[in-house]
């Protein structure tokens, strides 16, 4: 199967790239922490894909999209929607919790974006929020699931402001609250924030999830509880944006 397009998603935390074939299947993938020198990093990643598979047009998305040498540059909203539509093939609501922002995108009957909502200027309720607080608690991302499963009850964390939540969490630790309960409270706080952004969901509409945070099973379960409906994590959720970018230049 020969390569037909490359897609690169330069996010605030990680840079993701995929190579797809004419059927939209992912042939190769690259995921790296984002480097401040976007031009160099994206050129290197794309060169390595070209070296492995040959040349193809490039679509770029994400915060650093304008710094990438690409044939087409589109926003994350459009790309996540395209990627999600290819994976799910049905209308619904897509939640993408990224490093710097959280998006809720409504997909229409033919996969078009009918509406979207994003968090405001600050990083409240984003992946960055989890990263900072978990870092403060010295909990590796991979252990969150096991930790939360052990929690007898959630310790409420009332703030989703990263700065305020950090000091709130420090005082909870000082009060002797169990770590697993605090982490569970943290996830609930984030889920409540996402739920508010999603607004009222029509009955029976599907909810999909993309973005790096979707890899966190505990987060997905918390979100399901708060939304009161199943949340379908798209295959390779972190790559959905890059996939959408690749699809936009597929000949």
């Amino acid at each position: 199967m020969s390569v037909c397009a490359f897609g690169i998603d330069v996010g605030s935390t990680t840079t993701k790239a995929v190579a797809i074939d004419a059927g939209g299947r992912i042939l190769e993938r690259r995921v790296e922490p984002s480097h401040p020198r976007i031009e160099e990093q994206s050129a290197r990643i794309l060169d390595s894909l070209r070296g492995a598979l040959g040349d193809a047009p490039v679509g770029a998305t994400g915060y650093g999209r304008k710094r990438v040498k690409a044939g087409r540059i589109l926003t994350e909203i459009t790309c996540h929607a395209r990627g999600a539509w290819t994976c799910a093939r049905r209308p619904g609501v897509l939640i993408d919790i990224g490093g710097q922002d959280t998006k809720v995108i409504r997909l229409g009957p033919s996969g078009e974006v009918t509406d979207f909502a994003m968090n405001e200027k600050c990083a409240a309720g984003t992946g960055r929020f989890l990263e900072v607080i978990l870092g403060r608690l010295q909990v590796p991302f991979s252990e969150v699931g096991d930790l939360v499963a052990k929690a007898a009850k959630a310790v409420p964390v009332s703030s989703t402001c990263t700065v305020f939540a950090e000091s709130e969490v420090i005082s909870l630790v000082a009060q002797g609250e169990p770590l697993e309960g605090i982490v569970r409270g943290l996830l609930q706080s984030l889920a409540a924030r996402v739920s508010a952004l999603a607004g009222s969901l029509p009955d029976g509409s599907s909810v999909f999830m993309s973005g790096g945070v979707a890899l966190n099973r505990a987060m997905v379960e918390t979100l399901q509880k708060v939304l009161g409906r199943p949340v379908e994590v798209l295959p390779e959720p972190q790559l959905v944006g890059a996939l959408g970018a690749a699809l936009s230049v597929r000949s």
Partner: protein
Amino acid sequence: MIARRLQYELMSHALGPAMVAYQTWSDERRRSRRAAKESPFGPQLECTRKLKELMTRHYLAGRYADGAVPVAWVTSGFPVEFLRALGFFCVYPENHAALCSVQRKSAELSEVVEKEGYSRDLCSYARSDIGCALSLKTPVGRLPKPDLLACCTNICQTVLYWYRALAEHFRVPLVLLDTPFVYGSASPHQIQYVRDQLGEAVETAERISGRKLSGERMQRTAELALEGANLWGQCLEQGRHSPSPWTGFDGFFHMAPIVSLRGSEETNDYYRLLLAELQDRVSRGISGIREERHRLVWDNLPVWFKVRDISTSLAQRGFNLVCTSYTNAWAEAGKRMDPQDPLGSAARVYTHIILNQDLNNRMEVLRRLATEYRADGAILHSDRSCKPYSMGQVDLREKLASELGIKVLLLEADHADPRAYSSEQGETRLAAFMESFA
């Protein structure tokens, strides 16, 4: 007093215009030397030069107004006609704050008032204005000290506290016009309540100016205000043509005279000129942007410090703002003015300002604009500084999308303070909105 008056007359009628003409000429020379870059916009309106002259002359005259003529600082929604008939020179702090924002001075002025203990959550116009009063910093050189402060609550309640702070600072009288919020249409009792207050306000203004309000002059000013509102309305209506001969962003700037110099001959002369130019552009098929593919409605104030970026990124992709609820407000309310009953009709006009009416009315205005101007999308600017204008926009968005089937974007920003806006996220939203039309 006589010397000051002479200086003021000289600046506003002789030297001022000459200086402005020289400034305009030198600006143009500088511009023509620069290489013309590829622009997504149509040719610039010829009138822009006249507009600049008019507003510069106004601010230049203002530098010499205090001590020469009575000076009032007024809110944009204050019934200014009687003040004009009494010979007041009127300063519009809101217009001035917009000017500060365009010239990137808002953050600096805000820091002045924030140091004094005012909250950063206060309206950025109020912060710019109080900051200017405290620091005397202004891009227009100097604002004349007020003899009277005139404030009307038809645009928000913030103006009340803002003008109280000014009254304390300048130690001058404040007249307050309280307009009851209108659900549906105002009751006769509500209009009478406003009319009574107007009577008291006139008495105060007479005392300060040392003049009696002449019925003839009042009627003439009301006639001019009515004519001005109609002319401005006709200018806006040219946007109904496809392609529109100008953009809503042009409108944000060209509205300055109807806001700040309402009820004057020079304002109406200016709008006659603008209308003729717009009609000429329509007849020759000249468009506000190079290629108009989509037509948008804008709700709320502009993002003054980002007008260039937002308008350029829209124009580059063939999106034109063909109408805005904000510029429309100045055409709509004034049409109710009746020169035969200037004060009675002023009570009616100024009570029925868009921001003093309920959400159903807002929806009606947007629905009508979107339909009459054949818009296929809308941008609702959720303005951090203007809560009365931003409240209810989530409902408006849903209604516009479901009832008219148009695409609607809620854009979070601020009318003057760049610190309350995230460029990257704002641009992403705007770009995603435009991509969704494909």
